[in-house]
């Protein structure tokens, strides 16, 4: 019985992974198309990212040793693992384990693995890129934490499934209505998490030769692409669950995710790149202010929990 | 403005206006240092460049120092000739540190020896063993044909451009 259950979970997990990867790649392709149309170009086909990924996995590459290999595999694997705990629409693979902070920390493992891989390549450009990415992370995680904690306090639960369940019953129950400031902060944070302009310092192509990815080619770059696509799905998915009330089915879930991502793409299309310390301090100003303000409002509303 | 030229002429040098903002001074090889020093003291503080002309029929190299005076809005072109078979001249890097780089280039492309320049390593060319390439007696076409094996019949239907004389 246990084995059957395990196999069912395994196949479901593969399904979720494939679906999330496909969605992330499709979003990437649509974003390229949108960007092209904003710049009055025709743009690549929607499926371009799938072709790119396929090509990358079938292309030769260089490796700088086992730490490089291990790091880059560890760079996308925890993202897929974290995905298993995310409530996607009505479906959750492990309903009793969808703790939000746990998901966030699993995502950190992916960053740790990616950092280990690219730094093992021994290129200073990747080290500079990594240092920028980490500094940016020190920026955006702080307002994100403020918002997560206010949701914890507001919902009195840490399970994403329960947070979603609390928002059922119409638009007015969504957290976006109840905590608009927090949502605003998180939407800005999403821009930084996805590394879109003005927060794309880490992968500045002309400046530090695409930063962390400088030595990656072929399948390694493909792993980076998988990581980015899954992270895109995961991060927008978390925000949908937190603020947009989840979804009754998968398609509405994706639609809500796309709305979030669409805003990110539009902002990406019109803004230039900030310097890294400006970006970090920006996150410590406006989004953190919004997040803290939201937290204060929530605490004043909710009072003190009885411990 | 005119008096600077008079002063130079008083030093027993040939000097003439080329147009209303630049003049040239022709200096014997031995006096080049003192003249440049003097011009620097007379507000020609900017060292614009050093170039060389190969007068192959005369058997001479002509070194051209271009100076600028920001105060007078004038440009001075100081020329001196050195024998081609033994091109040696003192380095000017004591007057302008910048000269070091220009002299390095002249050394590389004309084979001129600058006495007192500490840094005459190759600048642009890698692994160069032939005659310095900007001398007029260096046949670049022959060199090109020899090294790059450029043959007009090896063009796969693409005709090379007509030879530009």
């Amino acid at each position, binding site marked *: 019985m246990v084995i059957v259950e395990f196999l069912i979970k395994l196949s479901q*997990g593969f399904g979720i992974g494939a679906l999330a990867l496909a969605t992330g790649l499709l979003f990437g392709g649509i974003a390229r198309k949108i960007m092209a149309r904003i710049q009055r170009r025709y743009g690549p086909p929607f499926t371009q990212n799938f072709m790119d990924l396929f090509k990358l*996995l079938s292309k*030769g*590459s*260089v*490796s*700088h040793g086992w*730490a490089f*290999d291990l790091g880059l*595999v*560890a760079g996308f*694997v925890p993202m*897929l*693992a974290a995905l*298993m705990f995310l409530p996607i629409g009505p479906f959750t693979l*492990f309903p*009793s*384990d*969808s*703790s*939000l*902070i746990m998901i966030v*920390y*699993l995502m*950190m*493992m992916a960053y*740790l693995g990616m950092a280990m891989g690219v*730094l*093992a390549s*021994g290129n*200073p*450009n990747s*080290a500079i890129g*990594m*240092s*920028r990415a*980490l*500094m940016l992370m*020190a920026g955006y*995680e*702080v307002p994100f*934490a403020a918002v997560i*904690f206010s949701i*914890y*306090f507001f919902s009195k*639960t840490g399970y994403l499934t329960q947070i979603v369940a609390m928002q059922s019953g119409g638009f007015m129950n969504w957290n976006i209505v109840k905590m608009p400031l927090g949502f605003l902060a998180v939407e800005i944070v999403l821009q930084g998490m996805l590394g879109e302009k003005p927060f794309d310092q880490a992968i500045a192509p002309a400046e530090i*030769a695409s930063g962390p990815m400088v030595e990656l080619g*072929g*399948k*390694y770059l493909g792993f980076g692409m998988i990581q980015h696509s899954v992270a895109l799905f995961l991060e927008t998915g978390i925000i949908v669950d937190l603020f947009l009330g989840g979804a009754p089915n998968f398609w509405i879930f994706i639609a809500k995710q796309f709305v979030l991502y669409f805003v990110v793409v539009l902002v990406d299309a019109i803004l230039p790149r900030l310097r890294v*310390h400006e970006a*970090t301090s920006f996150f410590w100003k406006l989004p953190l202010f919004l997040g*803290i303000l939201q*937290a*204060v409002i929530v*605490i004043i509303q*909710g009072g*003190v*929990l009885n*411990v | 403005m005119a008096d600077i030229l008079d002063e130079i002429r008083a030093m027993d040098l040939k000097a003439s206006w080329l147009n209303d903002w630049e003049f040239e001074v022709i200096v014997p090889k031995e006096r080049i240092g003192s003249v440049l020093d003097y011009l620097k003291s007379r507000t020609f503080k900017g060292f614009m460049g050093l170039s060389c002309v190969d007068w192959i029929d005369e058997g001479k190299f002509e070194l051209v120092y271009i100076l600028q005076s920001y105060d007078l809005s004038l440009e001075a072109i100081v020329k001196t000739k050195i024998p081609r078979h033994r091109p040696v001249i003192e380095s000017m890097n004591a007057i302008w540190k910048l000269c070091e780089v220009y002299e390095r280039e002249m050394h590389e492309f004309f084979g001129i020896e600058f006495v007192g320049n500490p840094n005459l390593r190759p600048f642009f060319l890698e692994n160069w063993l032939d005659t310095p390439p900007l001398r007029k007696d260096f046949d670049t076409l022959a060199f090109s044909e020899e090294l790059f094996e450029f043959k007009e019949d090896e063009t796969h239907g693409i005709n090379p451009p007509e030879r530009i004389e």
Partner: protein
Amino acid sequence: MSSLLALLLVPVTGSIVAAIIQRYRLAERLVSFSTFVVTLLFLIDIRVGDAFTWSLGFLGKNIEMGLQITPLSIFMLYMTIAFGVLLTFFDLTERSKMKSFLLLLTLAASNWIFMATDFLSFFFAWELMGWASILAIFGGRRTAESRHGALYYAMMSIGGSYSMLIGIFLLSNLTGSFSIQQNVSYLVSIMTVHPWWVLGIVSMFFVAFMVKSGIFPFHTWVPYTYGESPDGFVPYLSSVMSKYGIYGFLIFLPLTLSLRNVPGVLGLPWPNYTLVWFGSITAVVGSVLAFMQDDVKKLFAYSSFSNLGFILAAIALFTPIGLTAGLFHAFNHLLFNGAIFITVVAVISKVGITRMSEMGGLWQKMPLTFLTFFVGIASAAGIPPFAGFGSKWMIFQAMISHGLIFATVLLFFASIASFLYLMRAFHAIFLGQLSHKYDNVKEISAIGKITEVFLIGALIFFGIFPGFILDPINSIVGSFGLKPLPTSGYEYINGFFSSVNMVSIFIVVIVAFIFGFLLFAVSAKHKKVPQEDNYTAGQIPKDWNLTPEMYQFSYDFYEPMDKEIAPFLKIKIDGFFKGFGDSVEYLGSSIKEIFTGNVQIYTYLAIGGLVIFVIAGWIVW
């Protein structure tokens, strides 16, 4: 009963033997290791509730002294001794000038601290532990600097001890007893009547504990001392000894239970709230200062007291989840800090320097050490499924459940900043370009490898099965009169807002890794290239005279951040203590003028001192 005494006598005996044979390094280390093992064997016999008392006649008074085992003390004893066994095993091949007999003396003192039932023996043991560790620090790599570090530590310790001594005598003056239990219950009884008195007395003690744990604003000695102490001793110093302060805090924190119904901040009594802030600020200060460091031992010294800040913030809440989280983090910190410091010591012993910007690329030479360090920093960063995740996760939940959003955000920032400095150390030591001067570096000896494998195993095991630690912690929580958190199996962590099943996380991660490696295997082949074959924008490394050192970016890794936190760094707490020291020195020199060498003046002083002593005695007893 005798095994309680054995916990004191075995280390003392071992210490004497080690002191006699200290000339022979290996024998000395073997004695130290076997003493720890024997102490551990005696400890296995010991159960909660064991006690032993004796009395001491002093100035005509009979002072009851004793040893007793509480759930907390047995937890601390196991942590200390088990880690000590591991460390002394690792130290068998370690080459620093550490004196093992001092380590054993420290062990005896710490055992006594955890078992003491009265303040006199507590204070005596505290001082013994303090002085033994100060002397142990003298054997550092750089003599002058380690002397400076030891003196700094000594100065701070003496300050803390004086403060604690005054507190002890004030208390015993009030109650007429030295017994910890009686004194604490007396404090509880006057809590509602004279809260400020209680606060004053307790803060006397807290200064000593804060100094020992390196809590802000008494954190300044930590980097100096850790940075200069002998390589073999520093893991013990940072992993084990910093926890003694936490034990001290836990003696007095039950006092605040009687304040629960008095209005405070966000449902917390004022003292708890203040301590939470001390903890949070310590965590942030430690993390931020750490990522400016280039000296690897100093970096992890900052990291160490930053984690103590997490622990203090959690236990200061003194709620079931807070206390559980704090103690759990104390245990996890012991493990991952031990792993980190042991690998750092291994690296330092191989490369001979402590500046990180001159290392790099050592993963090629020391693969197992590299993996241990990786698991250590993953745990320190709180990444599941390693140990360290559960406790950080619980600390955050404990904090949020009280609505302490500001402090929690500060703690989360400290956690992210810890990710930053850990990555910086990871990169600077192990990743990047390997310099040619380390071509002959080898992996550490078999003993070191065994230690490292054990640490990796422990970090993963206690990450997946946190219940093995949470069970004893729950009994500690129960012994403080709090309701322990529900338990539902060894693989579960039950927090306030949610619970996680670590085994399912572990299985998911493992399955995902298997999938990842399958994808890696079926994708196109890769070609292994040496580190010189690297992207150089078309420039050829040999023509460019490129050396690995030039192509390693690790100095001033977070330079752009300096601009943002420069104002923060301007606050020099260090300077305050230096100024304080200067004025003490001035005072001392003016007092010195009294001692002119005249015998008469000495006589007067002696008589005056005696009179004061006698009068004080009347008042006290």
